[in-house]
């Protein structure tokens, strides 16, 4: 068993060797610019891109012409939200999203607020889920866009996408879903799920970093976007720039593999997640599950270990590559904005660990991880006066603290 054990599959995933193999020719002899119309190198690159578009479209039930390649999900999210806002801003200025979204959505929404848009940030429930009713209640005459993630990157909770999509379609409001954590993990069908815009990132599904795409619906309704990057008119004018051919080929192969193995991987992840949780919870008390038991990504387990400092825990288990929140906000020591939006309380928000399980995770790794977590949490709690008080039956919420703490 190789250390560190990687249990951070929501942050990024290793490139599947089969994906890399598909990419390699395009790092070698097939180096053409897909926009070169005059020779075989260009045609070959263009053909590779067009095959990739088909494969990706098939994975989400779209048509090839509805796929716009980007440098990743963050850019795709920016293009979807700003592209819609710029195109339909004259029709309405209201956008609905949630507090539990990824920073890419929240920061883009904040930017749009500065541009004169009015954004409603829904609170998810305690499990991290946003209800259709909440979206419906927030809808206004001038709502132009609902932007809600499919699977939460920190706690793994799934939103009721199909129902929200239907509501949006009934109301004539565009619906964008950040499906970065969902594609390749759960079945996705943009038709049945009533989605107008959806983003995919390759490096979250065993593809390379630096490539992703945006699905942009072409029929019923035909979604139009104002491009956010001009020059050359690639991607039907929606996104200019020389195409990252090897990356695109890798994204497509990653989609194809995930589609093929969706069932078996779902089972694999579920079994390992249950094993990990049971192994930890059988041996530790006061472990809190963050997320939704019913609507959940199989490969994501977010647990809080109250009365233990999250940072100390992370350092104690440094043989295991996990995260206390999303990688994109991990530079700050602030508690996760997702957990705060779920109103789980400070003790839980400050002591959470996200275990991300994926394609290459083994039982042996899970067992090693569980043992290590149990050992370190026990050790840290032995040093914790708070934990001692809890064991003595003191309800911490009733304690009248004096002085600083």
């Amino acid at each position, binding site marked *: 068993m190789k250390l560190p054990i990687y249990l951070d599959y929501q942050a990024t995933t290793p490139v599947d060797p089969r994906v890399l193999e598909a990419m390699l020719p395009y790092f070698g002899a097939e180096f053409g610019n897909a926009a070169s119309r005059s020779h075989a190198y260009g045609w070959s690159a263009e053909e590779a891109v067009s095959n990739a578009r088909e494969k990706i479209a098939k994975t989400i039930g779209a048509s090839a012409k509805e796929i716009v390649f980007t440098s990743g999900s963050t850019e795709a999210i920016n293009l979807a939200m700003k592209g819609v806002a710029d195109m339909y801003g004259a029709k309405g200025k209201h956008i609905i999203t949630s507090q539990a979204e990824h920073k*890419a959505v929240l920061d883009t929404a904040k930017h749009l607020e500065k541009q004169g848009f009015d954004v409603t940030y829904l609170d998810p429930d305690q499990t991290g889920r946003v209800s259709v009713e909440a979206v419906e209640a927030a809808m206004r005459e001038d709502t132009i866009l609902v932007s809600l993630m499919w699977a939460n990157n920190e706690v793994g909770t799934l939103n009721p996408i199909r129902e929200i999509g239907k509501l949006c379609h009934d109301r004539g409001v565009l619906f964008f879903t950040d499906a970065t954590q969902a594609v390749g993990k759960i079945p996705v069908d943009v038709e049945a799920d009533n989605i107008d815009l959806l983003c995919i990132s390759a490096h979250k599904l065993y593809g390379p970093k630096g490539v992703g795409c945006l699905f942009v619906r072409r029929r019923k309704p035909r979604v139009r976007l104002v491009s956010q990057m001009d020059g050359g008119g690639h991607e039907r004018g929606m996104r200019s720039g020389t195409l990252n051919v090897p990356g695109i080929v890798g994204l497509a192969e990653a989609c194809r593999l995930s589609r093929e193995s969706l069932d078996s991987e779902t089972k694999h992840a579920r079994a390992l997640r249950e094993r990990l949780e049971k192994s930890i919870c059988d041996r530790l008390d006061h472990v809190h599950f963050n997320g939704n038991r019913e609507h959940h990504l199989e490969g994501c387990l977010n647990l809080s270990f109250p009365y233990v400092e999250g940072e100390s825990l992370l350092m104690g288990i440094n043989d295991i590559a996990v995260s206390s929140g999303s990688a994109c906000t991990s530079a700050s020591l602030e508690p996760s904005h997702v957990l705060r939006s779920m109103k789980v309380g400070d003790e839980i928000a400050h002591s959470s660990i996200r275990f991300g399980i994926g394609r290459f995770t083994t039982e042996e790794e899970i067992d090693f991880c569980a043992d290590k977590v149990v050992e370190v949490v026990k050790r840290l709690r032995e040093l914790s006066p708070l934990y001692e008080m809890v064991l003595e039956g003191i309800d911490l919420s009733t304690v009248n603290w004096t002085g600083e703490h």
Partner: protein
Amino acid sequence: MSVTENKDGGSVVYLDNAATTPIVAKVRDKMLPWLGADWGNPSSRHSLGVKSRAAIDRARDQVARALAAKPERVIFTSGGTEANNLAVLGAARARKKFGTHLLVGPAEHPAVRDPALALFDEGFQVEVGELGPDGAFDLDAFLSAVRKDTVLVALMLASNEHGAIYPVSKVAAGVRRIAPNAHIHTDAVQALGKLDVDIVELGVDSVSISAHKIHGPKGTGALVLARDLPLRPLVFGGGQEGAIRSGTENVAGIVGFGEAVEMADQTLEGTNAQLSKLKQRLADGLAEIGGMRVLNPGGSNPSLGSIAAVLVSGPPAEVYLHHLEERGVLVSVGSACQAHKNEASPALLALGLSAEEARKVLRFSFSRESTDSEVDRALTVLRELAGELGAL
């Protein structure tokens, strides 16, 4: 049929290096670990993440060193197009309080020209500089368009269509005297690896570069700033690249880019001499054939050795292109980024060509991997074609 062989099984002569270049083995070898065992997200705080972060920092140093910039002023992007968009849109939007006048060069790539023109909708006035009657860049005429309230001047270092080199440092010095609040940007995508791109000597505020034009990977580029300058981000969320460019970094691409930039920088002198020789060889050969010539893209001003715009006679360039391709010589008409447009190139019209002549221009572009024998092979085919197409 593999693309490296033509129908007769002969080898192919690739002279479209301004469109893109093959990745060299040394660059690819540096990239592969980051597509293999070292897959961490650079924002992750565990050891795999820390390792990826360190790799990006090394690449940042490599890029900074080659451009005489500070590492913390290198902003990695998804390529040259994004870098140019970021410079134009980001700088103009950040400086709107100082004025709304923009000036872009006469032959800018669409990645500069298009975002500049798009700013019209945001209340900016966009002016496109003009060339002199002989196609030469006229410094005084260009500077006369600069105003006190000009907030952005963008002039490419070298043209992607005909290789003209523009006097960016002189322009920068002139602009500073007139427009104290202007952000001065240069698109060095084609110049990198062929000219010394020194951000201090150029005197500009930002330089855009791209990896795949210098034997690095597609999907990576950078905007390099001279110092801490105001710039509105194009992509929000996550706060990577000093919050100017969010999104998980393309680690393998960035590592390959760093290596490609370093190699280009180290081989610069030799490359320069070699490219000029190749271009001269082509020009001499064409003179011998007759009826065709390498265009002089601007009076007495210098041009890149890597790009030769060739004016053919007889049928339009498209016809030559097709026949050249059939015989294994791969060149282009205009830039790949305009390949889908059927209009005459503005950059060629700016040289004083008629619309009809502008359709008779082939672009031959070399890299440091190009050889004399490739040029000779191209000349042989051109000689055959000139006869067959009745151009003589």
